[in-house]
């Protein structure tokens, strides 16, 4: 039997069973469209995160004390507790070519109080470089000056939320607050801004690093932020950072360096995995479509017993009968897939118009994957009805409806 003839034959069949055909087309197209749309959603989220990261503008390296990687085996025999990162380490890192700014950070929690109000607050001890590296702007007053790198000045900069809770709508600039057991003058309030890299800057207090050293009575840094030049090679600077630290720490490489690039890569990774998980879940709808095709094909086989018997009597072989039934499913799936893909892309197009800041973008593999699953399930689930049809005894099939 020629392919064209089979297409004509199937078309006649579809025309005859319109409701059934439309139902199956719908099932397949919904499955295909949902795979494409949902993966587009995942991919869109990834694109969104990418853009948020690159909107940060600068590139940051973060140096943490202690090694993150575990190399397996037992606990290390000596050098178990890492050395502290010190301000001197930070200054040494600042001399690496390609590093634009170094922001050492000491972190802790203190009580901040003004008149009769007080609260616990996360306190960061740092320098003027901190604001540059983290791209924080001043809302009122001024930020820490270069003197904060070396002198334990009794000044502080408040996050907006802290300011609001202590001062309400009253003026905070120039006021004295009590931080731990010290008195400090408020010199500035940060501009309102959301979370940035996991820290809510609205709910923070920033003081000079030397002041924090005294306040927390510890020379150990919480971390060091390096702002690296846009032209610099992040990996190379990462290596140099480790070399500098090794030299300063008697050959121990007891820090971890995280690059913004690797963080982005981690996000990318998570979202890509998520997208694939979504794809797998939405494939279930294609599985359902496959099962629907199987059921309807089985019904069709029993309804068309007489026809199958006849086809055999006029020379159709079992193989041809099988081919007819599988071809019918594949044709339905082709049409359903085409419909599903069109609908999905139409919706993506409409969506892009309505919500341009979050562009849905199907990953390149979405369409092939959806088609693969659609045809795979279609094939698997049409084999059984096709086999049943092919195995029909023509004599019985003809007699059964001869009554």
């Amino acid at each position: 039997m020629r392919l064209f003839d089979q297409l004509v034959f199937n078309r006649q069949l579809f025309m005859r069973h319109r409701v059934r055909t439309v139902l199956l087309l719908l099932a397949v197209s919904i499955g295909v469209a949902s795979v494409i749309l949902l993966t587009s959603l995942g991919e869109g989220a990834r694109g969104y995160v990418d853009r948020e990261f690159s909107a940060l503008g600068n590139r940051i390296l973060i140096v943490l004390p202690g090694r993150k990687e575990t190399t397996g085996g037992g606990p290390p025999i000596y050098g178990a507790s890492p050395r502290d990162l010190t301000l001197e380490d930070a200054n040494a890192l600042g001399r690496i070519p390609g590093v634009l700014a170094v922001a050492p950070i000491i972190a802790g929690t203190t009580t901040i109080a003004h008149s009769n109000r007080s609260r616990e607050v996360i306190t960061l001890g740092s320098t003027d470089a901190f604001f540059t590296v983290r791209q924080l702007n001043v809302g009122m007053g001024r930020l820490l000056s270069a003197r904060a790198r070396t002198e334990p000045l009794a000044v502080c900069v408040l996050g907006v939320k802290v300011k609001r809770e202590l001062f309400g709508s009253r003026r905070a600039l120039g006021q004295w607050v009590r931080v731990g057991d010290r008195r400090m003058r408020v010199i500035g309030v940060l501009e309102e801004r959301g979370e940035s890299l996991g820290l809510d800057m609205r709910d923070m207090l920033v003081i000079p690093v030397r002041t924090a050293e005294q306040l927390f009575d510890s020379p150990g840094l919480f971390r060091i932020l390096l702002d690296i030049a846009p032209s610099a090679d992040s990996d190379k600077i990462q290596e140099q950072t480790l070399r500098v630290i090794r030299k300063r720490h008697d050959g121990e490489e007891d820090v971890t360096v995280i690059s913004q690039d690797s963080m982005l890569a981690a996000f990318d990774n998570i979202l890509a995995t998520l997208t694939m998980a979504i794809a797998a879940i939405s494939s279930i709808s294609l599985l359902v479509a496959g099962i629907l095709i199987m059921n309807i094909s089985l019904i069709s086989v029993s309804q068309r017993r007489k026809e199958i018997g006849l086809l055999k009597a006029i020379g159709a072989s079992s193989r041809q009968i099988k081919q007819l039934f599988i071809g019918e499913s594949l044709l339905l799936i082709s049409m359903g897939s085409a419909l599903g893909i069109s609908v999905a892309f139409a919706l993506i197009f409409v969506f892009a118009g309505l919500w341009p800041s979050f562009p849905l973008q199907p990953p390149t593999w979405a369409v092939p994957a959806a088609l693969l699953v659609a045809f795979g399930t279609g094939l698997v689930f049409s084999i059984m009805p096709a086999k049943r049809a092919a195995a029909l005894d023509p004599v019985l099939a003809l007699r059964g409806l001869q009554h």
Partner: protein
Amino acid sequence: MIKLEAINKTYQVGGSPLRALCDVSLQIEPGEYLSVMGPSGSGKSTLLNMIGLLDRPDSGRYWFDQVATEELNEERRAHLRGENIGFIFQSFHLINRLTAFENVELPMMLAGQPVKQRRSAVTDVMAMVGLSDRASHKPNQLSGGQLQRVAIARAIVMRPRLLLADEPTGNLDSHSGGEVIDVIEKLNQDGITLITVTHDQQLGDRARRHIRMVDGMIDSDHNAHIKGSNIKSSQTKISDIKSVDIDSADTEDKKSDDATI
């Protein structure tokens, strides 16, 4: 052309075996016209399905054109059936969603023949059964006699050499039955081998060879050659129909040709 040797077919009915065919041996030459008669359940249809390669015997041998059919696989049997054997059923078995033309075209389509060849062959056989003007009609727009003639057209469109008719007039009134018989007898006169299963004595008598089956066995098998001319003259009783124009001189020639083959 056809040679059956000790064919047996047993069905299990409610646990006990039922012998539908019992050591049936039969030889049929090309161009013969057989009628198979006998009481209901005597195995007539089973025999016909066996000859038509729709069914396989439990034991015994069947040669079709010297080909031992029991050795063929399903694929080859289907091919042999499609090329050489035409079926006509009591209940027509036309596909309702297809037009008369498309129904007739179906065997050629399954055989993978090109459209042009199909078109001319279908047009020819539709004319032969007198239904040229009904080609685009669907089965539900045709009468019983017309339906059976469409089925005949479908059975012969592949130019088979054997035509098997299982009670071809069983669902028809005598008038349309006559039309149908006329058509298939004309085909026989043109050389096709014809086997008709029937309960209608009158129809059975028209054949040149009569087989009577009882309980799965061939009870009697005799030629009615001598009476042939008598039957021919009485033909007008059933078939005074115009649909087929038989050039009798021509067919007589053909018949004698066939007899010598």
